[in-house]
C-alpha cells in the first residue's frame, strides 16, 4: 500500500514542480473555448442548439484530461530513457504495483488538470445547472483520466523512444478527441461519424461530464458509467500485460 502511495506521490510531486507544463497545457483548452466557443456560438444558437459554450465546456474539460492522461502514460518512455524505470524494475516490487501506482498518479494529475480547466470555463460564461452533481462530474473526469492513462501506459510499453509520439498524438489522440462529441452534438450525424463516436470511449466520458453538469445526457448515465468502467478495466489489463513484458 505504501508503495502505491509513494509512486502516486511521485507523479504528483513531478506535476506540481513543473509549472511551465501546467500553464502550457492550459493554452490549448483556452484557445478552443475562445475560438470555437465564441466563434461558433452565434451559429449554434441560430440553429436552435442553445448556449454553445455550455455545450462545449465539458468537451474542453475532457480534452484537457485526455491529453494530460495520455501524456502521463507515455512518460514511461521518459523514465526508460532517463533510467529511472530501471531503478523501479530491479526493486523487489511487482510490475503490477508499479503500473498501478503510476497509473493512479497520472490519473490524479489529469483529473486536477481537468478541474483547473473546469474553473477556467466559468470565465468564459459556462452555466452549470446545479452543483449537486459535481461529485458525479468529478467521478467521470477521473474515469476518463484513468482510462487514458492506462492506454498511454500500454502504448508506451510498446515503444522504445519518443519518435512515435507525434504519430500517437496525430493518429490516435486527436481523432479520439475530435470524433467524440466534445465539439458537436451526437444527434443527427452521418452514419459513419455516428458509428465512430459510438466506439470512441471518450464520447461516454464527455457525455457523463456534460450530463452531470448541464443535465443533458446523450447515452444515459448508466451507459456512460458502464462503458467507461469496462473499457478502463480492459485498458488496465492490456497495459499491465504489456508493461510486464517491458525489457530494458
Amino acid at each position, binding site marked *: 500500500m505504501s508503495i502505491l502511495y509513494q509512486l502516486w506521490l511521485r507523479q504528483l510531486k513531478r506535476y506540481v514542480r513543473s509549472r511551465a507544463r501546467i500553464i502550457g497545457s492550459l493554452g490549448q483548452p483556452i484557445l478552443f473555448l475562445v475560438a470555437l466557443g465564441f466563434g461558433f456560438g452565434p451559429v449554434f444558437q441560430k440553429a436552435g442548439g442553445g448556449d454553445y459554450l455550455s455545450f462545449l465546456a465539458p468537451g474542453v474539460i475532457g480534452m484537457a484530461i485526455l491529453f494530460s492522461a495520455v501524456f502521463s502514460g507515455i512518460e514511461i518512455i521518459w523514465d526508460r530513457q532517463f533510467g*529511472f524505470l530501471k531503478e523501479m524494475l530491479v526493486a523487489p516490487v511487482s510490475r503490477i504495483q508499479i503500473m498501478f501506482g503510476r497509473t493512479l498518479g497520472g490519473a490524479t494529475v489529469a483529473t486536477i488538470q481537468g478541474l483547473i480547466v473546469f474553473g477556467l470555463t466559468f470565465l468564459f460564461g459556462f452555466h452549470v445547472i446545479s452543483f449537486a452533481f459535481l461529485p458525479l462530474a468529478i467521478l467521470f473526469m477521473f474515469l476518463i483520466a484513468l482510462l487514458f492513462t492506462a492506454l498511454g501506459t500500454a502504448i508506451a510499453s510498446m515503444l522504445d523512444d519518443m519518435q512515435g509520439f507525434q504519430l500517437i498524438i496525430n493518429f490516435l489522440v486527436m481523432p479520439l478527441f475530435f470524433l467524440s462529441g466534445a465539439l458537436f452534438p451526437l444527434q443527427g450525424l452521418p452514419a459513419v461519424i455516428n458509428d465512430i463516436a459510438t466506439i470512441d470511449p471518450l464520447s461516454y466520458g464527455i457525455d457523463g461530464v456534460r450530463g452531470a453538469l448541464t443535465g443533458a445526457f446523450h447515452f444515459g448515465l448508466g451507459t456512460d458509467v458502464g462503458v467507461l468502467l469496462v473499457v478502463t478495466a480492459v485498458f488496465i489489463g492490456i497495459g499491465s500485460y504489456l508493461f510486464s513484458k517491458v525489457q530494458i
Partner: protein
Amino acid sequence: MNSIDVRHLTKTFGSFSAVKDLSFLVPQGEIFAFLGPNGAGKSTTIKILTTLLSPTSGEVFIEGKSSVTQQNEVRKSFGIVFQDPSLDDELTAYENMELHGVLYRVPPVIRMGRIEEMLRFVELWDRRDELVKHFSGGMKRRLEIARGLLHHPKILFLDEPTLGLDPQTRSHMWQYIVALNKQEGMTIFFTTHYMEEASKIAHTIAIVDHGTIIAQGSAHDLQVKTGTASLEEAFLALTGDAIRDEDATSTDQMRMNMRIRGRK
C-alpha cells in the same frame, strides 16, 4: 558460500549470442572486476544477474537464490549503480532515497536514520533537499551509491561507475567502496574501462570477449600469463587491438539530440 554463481549462461537476441556458455563464481566478500571491450556482453550479463533480463539458457544464483524463480529474494539482496544515471531528476536527493527505501520495504523507523547515515557517508546530507537535476555528474553518482546501499545489500553491482568522473571523485568513490567491502564484507561486482582501477582494487579479474570469459585471475596472474607489465597490456594482448563498435541505441541518439537542443 558464493555470492554469485553463474552456470552455463547463454543469452541470444535473434541470431546474435550476446553471452555464450558463461560460467563463473564470485565468493562472498570478494571484489570482482568484469572487464571486456565494448559489445563483449558485460551489460547483458549484469542485466541478467540483476533480473532485468531472463537467460535464454543456463542458471544464475545470487546469494543462493535463482534469478528466475526467486526474483524477489534476489532483488532484495543486491544494490546496483547503473551505467547511466537512474535517479528521478525532478525529486530531491532525500526523496529519491525515500522512494528507494519504500520500494525495498525498509521499515519507516529505520529508514530515516539509514537515509541520513548513507547521505552523510557520500557527503550529500547538506544538499538533501535540492532537486537532483541541479546536481553535477559526480554528485549524482555518489547519490546513486548511497541509494544502492540503503537497504543493506549483500552484493553491490557497479556498471562503469566512474565513467565521466574526474580523478578526485573517482578516487573518493573507490575509497568508499573498498571501505564497505572491508567493514561489511560486501561483495562488489564491477565493470570499468579504466584498467588501473581494476588492477588496484579487484581481487579477481575476469576478462570477457564475444560473450565468454577468456581469462580470469588476479591482475598479477593475468600479467604473468600474457608476459606483460600491466593489466592494460595484458587486456590488449588477450582481446586484440581492433576497435569495437557498438550500435548507438535510441537512448544515445536522444541524449545527443537533447545536447544539441540544449546548446541553441
